[in-house]
């Protein structure tokens, strides 16, 4: 590509028209690259600054001397301090197990329901699949107050179990929607062939549908993970003691103490908390995007 563009200028052009078209395309390409680069720089300012700050000592931050965008004495002390901090480890562990349970519960509910809705059907299944979707329109910020009361009855206030109960409500509707889309795209002949081959419905689900719709399952799983890992409102509203906090709330509420802003530490915590989703997306982004856009482009 780069070789072609470098030599194109020297080559005799067979026809003026062709050459100008090529040049136009090349200009359009370069303009696109330049503009994309500008966007990328703007988009990456916060994560960049997050990392830069996390490598600074409190002294360097408070000194306010010189360019804040660069580090003079990079140090991993902030990371080390967090790793040896029992409270931070606690937040991490809380986030991990709440997320693992949320993903498991959400995916189980979503896969079973999607299989039923896309293939088996019963009276009112059409209404249910529409209803599932509508629940997406009742956001958590509309429900957190009545749910506060309900969690109170269940004795789950200030317990991470409240999140295990509530997070699936955020993940399940969309996961079900994704799975219905993927299951519906499996040709009906495939289950008919399996039926004739002697498979029962559970066998069709486990041995045909789940393996065939694996990309969809990955997409839905990532969604459930993202929702659970990044959720802020519910843990903020229902968990008040530090030992029950998840990462988001732990960092925002517990690490920011009064006026003493340990920003190096806070940014290091943010970077560490943002690492799992970034790693997951690095490898599985394509699945997620496919799952996200599959339904939308169909209609």
């Amino acid at each position, binding site marked *: 590509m780069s070789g072609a563009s470098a030599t194109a200028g020297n080559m005799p052009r067979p026809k003026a028209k062709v050459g100008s078209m090529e040049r136009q395309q090349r200009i359009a390409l370069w303009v696109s690259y330049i503009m994309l680069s500008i*966007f990328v720089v703007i988009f990456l300012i916060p994560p960049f*600054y997050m990392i830069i700050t996390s490598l600074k000592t409190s002294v360097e931050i408070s000194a306010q001397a010189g360019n804040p*965008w660069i580090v003079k004495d990079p140090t991993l002390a902030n990371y080390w301090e967090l790793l040896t901090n029992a409270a931070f480890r606690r937040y991490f562990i809380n986030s991990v197990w709440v997320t693992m349970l949320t993903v498991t519960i959400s995916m189980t509910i979503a896969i079973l329901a999607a299989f*039923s809705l896309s293939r088996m059907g019963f009276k009112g299944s059409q209404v249910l699949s529409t209803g599932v979707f509508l629940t997406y329109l009742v956001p958590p910020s509309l429900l957190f107050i009545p749910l506060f009361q309900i969690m109170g009855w269940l004795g789950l206030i200030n317990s991470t179990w409240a999140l295990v109960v509530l997070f699936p409500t955020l993940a399940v509707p969309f996961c079900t929607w994704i799975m219905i889309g993927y299951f519906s795209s499996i040709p009906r002949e495939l289950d008919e062939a399996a039926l004739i081959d002697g498979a029962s419905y559970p066998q069709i689900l486990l041995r045909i549908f789940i393996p065939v719709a694996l990309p969809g399952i990955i997409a839905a799983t990532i969604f459930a993970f993202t929702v659970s890992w990044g959720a802020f409102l519910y843990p903020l509203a229902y968990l008040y003691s530090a030992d029950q906090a998840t990462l988001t709330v732990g960092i925002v509420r517990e690490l920011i103490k009064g006026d003493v802003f340990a920003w190096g530490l806070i940014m290091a915590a943010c970077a560490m908390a943002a690492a799992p989703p970034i790693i997951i997306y690095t490898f599985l*982004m394509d699945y997620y995007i496919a799952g996200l856009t599959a339904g939308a482009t169909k209609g």
Partner: protein
Amino acid sequence: MADGSTMVVGAPSAASTRPTGSMKMLARRRSMAALALCAPLILLIVCLKVYPTFYAVYLAMLDRRMNNFVGLDNFAFMLSRPSFQLVIFQSVFFAVTAVILKAFFGFVLAHLMHNIRGRNERVWRGLLLVPWVIPLALSTLTWWWLFDPSYSAFNWTLNALGIEDIAFLGSTWSARFSVIAVNVWYGAPFFMIMYLAALKSVPDQLYEAAAIDGANAWQKLVFITLPMMRNIILITVLYSLIVTFADFDIVRILTNGGPQDSTHLFATYAFTVGIQSGNIPRGAAVSLFMFPILATLAFFVLRDVMKRNKELS
């Protein structure tokens, strides 16, 4: 026959010895099983979505001590308060401005990505998706640090360019735009993804046909790209409106409603009133004000969903 018969020997089909059930009974049992598979989903929705919605309506009609029924008093009281009128204005302003900007930047980005298709597209896309991947609460915290009144890295840069400090979160309008900026930064990648998928689904032949018919780039955009993307633009905007209206994290962390309650959204205001000040009924009332707006949007979305369901079945 020779080849076929060797296969049969000694292997009477296992199937013929199986017990056989009535197909009708099977069909009924199947629909029961189908319902059973959906039971967890139904339970989840009814208990944790539908019931709380109605319970919120009930809660909103109680007095502060939650002993007496006061009808619509809480709603009337909220509406009469200037600070709440400001919340309504700010919520609408925030959602509409942010969604328009997100849609615009998403559209531009999608086109740029489409222009360079195939060439390291995955890397570019990955870089542009970073805002959307970092948990919002954490990236907002970073923005806060970038906006910090005394340590702001933005202001240092402005000073270096000879421009005076901006109190990003200190005055009403700059705080409002800061909040919107963070939301746009977070949400534009999502629009880009959706629009890029839509762009890719437009068959190249349409553009070729238009080029032969003599259309220029602008005409191709107006007469082919936009009409073909109409559906997806509509859906994405509707969804984003809903989610942006209900936004909590950004305002809560960045300004907590300040300065002087000028950046509060329904969600953050309800949190302040309901959870922090402990006035549960008023908090419920505040969040319920979102409902008519969401219901209107829901109506349009539902229409689209019904259409899709029809296509699927």
